[in-house]
């Protein structure tokens, strides 16, 4: 067993949604109980994804709350933050309630995020208080950044009274100017318009300054460049309480992958240079990055069978995140779990239910991971409705065996139960 308090050998007894015994549970197990064999495995608090696109309402041909939840559970997640760029977007209480209700019927805990601006148009503040009253703790216009500095400043000030976090997709639209990949050696060679690293970095710089000015709780989504991470590190050292996440594709793939012109490698922010990937890995090791978040972004088959510049950006990633983190990062399991479970739980404001120590009385949100098991990524065997997975054929080490959400075993032996 491994959680924020350390590691020990123990069994866990779960009943009616909670952990009721930890340690030696012989004699306590009732007849007919479901037994999850964790031999050779690590039992940990369920993983928390700060960044999942569940695509419902509006894009159900790509994914639904149910299918994304199933993929999440298979990936060891017991909680996900649902991104609000749905159609209609989650910029009001009705849509938030709707997504909440869909999540309640699914096999993980779904925490809808709300938008910062109405319709994600970047012009007017969305009714954050009414959404916060429903429990929304994170607001973002993800899919795009808030381009207007004045609006972002006011959003930060307004959010301050609500105790909520604003999360930014850092991309200066004017400088990015519709670039479809990272601007550099590869974009020049391949003849594809690129967006420079500075398109992300300018907004990181701006939002750090605005957060310092307003005292807001700022979370930076999917950072991808060396300079972005250096700025976060410097801001932290100067006392600013900003948090940052990175996505697995930004520590496992570079812009060289685009040479195949396969749009499965198209994503925003784009796959970057080898130097940036090295910086992301270093930032994960030195504490600059607080969380690994998947940015799971499903798209239907035909959307990704278009010319590279016409295809929508995004990759799915709920089912491969653990394997990639354990295979590609030279970090101890405890550090990986911190990045994928208890640290993101704190950022999402859900640490009373998720990410916390496996202890009597706490809600039973758990995952069981076999850190040595090897497997080969097969996109066709995914619970997601989409197949835009860039890791086809890749061998990974580290597999989720079981997942328990709210006391229910939703994944047993690598199979989703519903």
């Amino acid at each position, binding site marked *: 067993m491994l959680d924020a308090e350390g590691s020990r050998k123990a069994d866990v007894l779960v009943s009616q949604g909670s952990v009721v015994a930890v340690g030696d549970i012989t004699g306590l197990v009732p007849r007919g109980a479901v037994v999850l064999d964790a031999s050779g495995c690590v039992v940990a608090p369920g993983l928390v994804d700060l960044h999942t696109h569940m695509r419902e309402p509006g894009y159900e041909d790509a994914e639904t709350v149910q299918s994304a939840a199933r993929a999440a559970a298979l990936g060891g997640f017991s909680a996900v933050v649902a991104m609000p760029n749905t159609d209609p977007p989650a910029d009001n209480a009705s849509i938030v309630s709707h997504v909440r209700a869909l999540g309640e019927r699914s096999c993980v805990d779904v925490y809808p995020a709300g938008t910062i601006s109405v319709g994600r148009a970047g012009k007017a503040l969305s009714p954050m208080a009414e959404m916060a009253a429903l429990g929304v703790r994170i607001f973002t216009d993800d899919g795009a950044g808030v381009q207007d500095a004045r609006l972002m400043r006011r959003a930060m000030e307004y959010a301050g009274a609500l105790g909520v976090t604003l999360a930014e997709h850092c991309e200066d639209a004017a400088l990015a*100017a519709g670039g479809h990949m990272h*601007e*550099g*050696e590869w*974009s*020049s*060679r*391949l*003849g*594809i*318009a*690129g967006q*420079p690293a500075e398109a992300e970095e300018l907004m990181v710089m701006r939002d750090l300054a605005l957060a310092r000015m307003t005292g807001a709780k700022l979370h930076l989504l999917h950072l991808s460049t060396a300079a972005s991470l250096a700025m976060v590190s410097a801001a932290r050292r100067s006392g600013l309480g900003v948090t940052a996440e990175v996505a697995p594709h930004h520590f496992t793939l570079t812009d060289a992958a685009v040479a*195949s*012109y*396969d749009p499965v490698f198209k994503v925003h922010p784009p796959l970057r240079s080898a130097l940036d990937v090295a910086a992301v890995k270093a930032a994960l090791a030195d504490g600059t990055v607080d969380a690994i978040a998947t940015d799971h972004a499903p798209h239907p088959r*035909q959307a990704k*069978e*278009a*010319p*590279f*510049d*016409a295809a929508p950006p995004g990759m799915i990633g709920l089912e491969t995140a653990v394997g990639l983190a354990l295979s590609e990062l030279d970090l101890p399991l405890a550090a990986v779990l911190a990045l994928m479970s208890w640290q993101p739980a704190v950022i999402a404001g859900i640490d009373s239910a998720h990410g916390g120590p496996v202890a009597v009385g706490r809600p039973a949100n758990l995952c069981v991971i076999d850190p040595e098991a090897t497997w080969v990524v097969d996109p066709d065997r995914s619970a997601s409705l989409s197949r835009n997975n860039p890791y086809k054929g890749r061998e990974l080490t580290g597999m989720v065996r079981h997942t328990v959400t709210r006391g229910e075993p939703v994944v047993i032996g690598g199979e989703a139960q519903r």
Partner: protein
Amino acid sequence: MGEIRELLRLADRFGEVNRRPIPKVPALRGKTVVNMFFEDSTRTRLSFDTAARRLSADVVTFSASTSSLNKGESLRDTVETVESLGVDALVVRHSSSGVPWQISSWVKRPSVVNAGDGCHEHPTQALLDCYTIARTSPVLADRYGPDSDDFDFQGLLVGIVGDISHSRVARSDVAAMTALGATVTLIGPPTLLPPSLAGWPVEVSNDLDSLIGDLDVCYLLRLQRERTAEALLPSLREYRAIYGLTEERADKLRSDALVMHPGPANLGVEIDADVTRRPCSVIGAQVANGVSVRMAVLYYLLGSGVDLVNS
């Protein structure tokens, strides 16, 4: 390099075919070539069409503007539909880079010919450019004789002028000309050069006037009018003043230098009309050679094994 020389030698043979009273050989009889032009084109489409017909292939032209792409059919489904008709070659031109590669990963049997993909490559243009240089350059004729089939460009100085960053012609010309040994200099304002030239076997300059007297080939690229709207240039007027091959600037070329352009030219912008009519301009030869070169490419892919001499 070996493959380029082989194609250029084939172009010589087809050039001879094109000078016959009946410029036709049965080499590709029974083969079907589909021209899939998703982007407007005059020269390239007519050139491929003519080339395929002179090889006796059956030619089918797919026109994007009247296809079910307008009904939302995906690129892949469109291509697979065409493939299922039983075709031997797809000649693909698209405004997006990489489409021919994507298509070749989807189709099982037909050969795929890149007739120009986005800003990436235009290989047959580069081949006809190299062929034209080889057969019209007084510098090379002096050095190797006018009919040499060595296609050796060592010591040849080529300047490619214009919007390099958006040019598939430039990228392919750099690849082909340097493969044959030429020294290539890319000339243009910083905003029209690619963000990174790492690994490109080229020189770079922002100053055409300082180089123009040294060039063996002055190759002008078409400047699209939209570039001023993208904040890449202040105006076409300023571009012409600094980089346009005006009559005054053309006077500074050596008498044995060639002037080339892939067409269509923006007369009065990158090149003046009178310059295109000077003897040093081989723009007309480029177009004419396009047919022989494309016959060579189609024959190489589909007809190898068929005896050219006796057909």
